[in-house]
């Protein structure tokens, strides 16, 4: 077991070192690259913590989507970087801030180390009720059955965030196309990558959704990979983003939450409570919700990265 412990120690030290670098780096672009590496390493930590579902989410969203979002932003903000760096606070303030943060970290560490033993857990309850849902993955059970309300509201949060991003567009561009127009160049390896990767990526995304019922995976991870493939094709200029005022686009965006909500309401007459599933139909209902959710999540995540409309809508 000493080998396992050594592995974990190495991993923890590397994660902390990369995190420290992203804070200390002087160049913002370099710091963002550090953050992408940090996301990859964090996925390893989650595997070591026996949480492969979280590892998948972290790899796809924490490292991939957030990293790309920040990479695009830092490229556009490059002109303003030098001016901003000049406003770094003095050594005294940094020392005070560092001391305060160290105290907070130490207090957190102490409180985690002093947690009651044996630890309180809901694992037995989650495992005991899993057969009723027909699922094999307890995480999917928690997300879509036991705590389905959280998941439903999280979808609403995603939609609200997207509305917030869209409403940052100037009035004349409202309802227009997000992002700048890109032209595909035939000899660009990026175009080749954008033709090569999506077919594989889409299969992997659908695979993660499909196995999510019984093994690690699910709507979030699958949706995130689908969104990444869409963004890749967008970056290479192979496709263009649709105007955000398109009705079919709006329908895809709200389809997931609406279907989820409708099935939840149907729980009142059929199973006696909001978001309760009739026992015999629990698994098919959950799978229907997951499939529609995956589409909506992919569309929302992709449009969040694409940003607010920057080109005027085409004449109707």
């Amino acid at each position, binding site marked *: 077991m000493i080998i396992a412990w050594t592995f974990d120690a190495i991993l923890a030290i590397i994660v902390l070192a990369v995190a420290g670098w992203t804070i200390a780096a002087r160049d913002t672009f370099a710091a963002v690259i550090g953050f992408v590496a940090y996301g990859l390493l964090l996925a390893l930590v989650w595997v070591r913590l026996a949480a492969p579902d979280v590892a998948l989410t972290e*790899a796809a969203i924490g490292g991939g989507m957030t990293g790309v979002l920040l990479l695009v932003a830092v490229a556009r903000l490059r002109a303003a970087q030098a001016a901003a760096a000049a406003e770094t606070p003095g050594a005294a303030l940094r020392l005070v801030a560092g001391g305060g943060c160290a105290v907070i970290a130490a207090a957190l560490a102490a409180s985690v180390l002093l947690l009651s033993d044996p630890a309180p857990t809901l694992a037995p309850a989650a495992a005991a009720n899993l057969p009723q849902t027909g699922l094999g993955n307890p995480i999917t059970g928690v997300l879509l059955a036991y705590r389905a309300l959280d998941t439903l509201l999280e979808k609403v949060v995603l939609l609200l965030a997207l509305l917030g991003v869209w409403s940052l567009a100037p009035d004349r561009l409202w309802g227009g196309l997000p992002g700048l127009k890109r032209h595909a160049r035939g000899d660009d390896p*990026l175009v080749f990558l954008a033709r090569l990767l999506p077919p594989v990526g889409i299969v992997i995304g659908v695979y993660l959704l499909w196995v999510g019922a019984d093994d690690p995976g699910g709507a979030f991870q699958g949706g995130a990979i689908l969104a990444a493939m869409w963004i890749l094709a967008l970056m290479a200029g192979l496709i263009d983003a649709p105007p955000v005022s398109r009705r079919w686009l709006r329908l895809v965006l709200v389809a997931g939450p609406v279907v989820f909500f409708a099935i939840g309401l149907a729980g009142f007459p059929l199973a006696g409570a909001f978001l309760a599933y009739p026992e015999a139909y629990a698994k098919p209902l959950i799978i229907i919700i997951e499939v529609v959710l995956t589409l909506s999540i992919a569309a929302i995540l992709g449009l969040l990265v694409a940003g607010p409309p920057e080109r005027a809508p085409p004449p109707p």
Partner: protein
Amino acid sequence: MAEFLLAAAGFVLLTVALGLARILVGPATVDRMMAAQLLGTGGIAVLLLLAAATGLSAAVDVALTLAVVAAFASAAFVKGAPGPDDPATDKA
């Protein structure tokens, strides 16, 4: 066997992490991105080794996801890297 695989995973992790020193010294952003790319491939190898060592077969799926995401992030990096089509670049 499991112990050997875990040790190999630790070794690979340690080596590619040493490569991260390239993120520190650069000098160009391309060099930094190369270190991240090496970390991505190394991370995939570590995940595959972990999957075999601990019997957690889902780690292979994580490796698959990591492979897609690493290529995706590299593409975004190339789009954002400083270059002649970027007026605000000071050539390094």
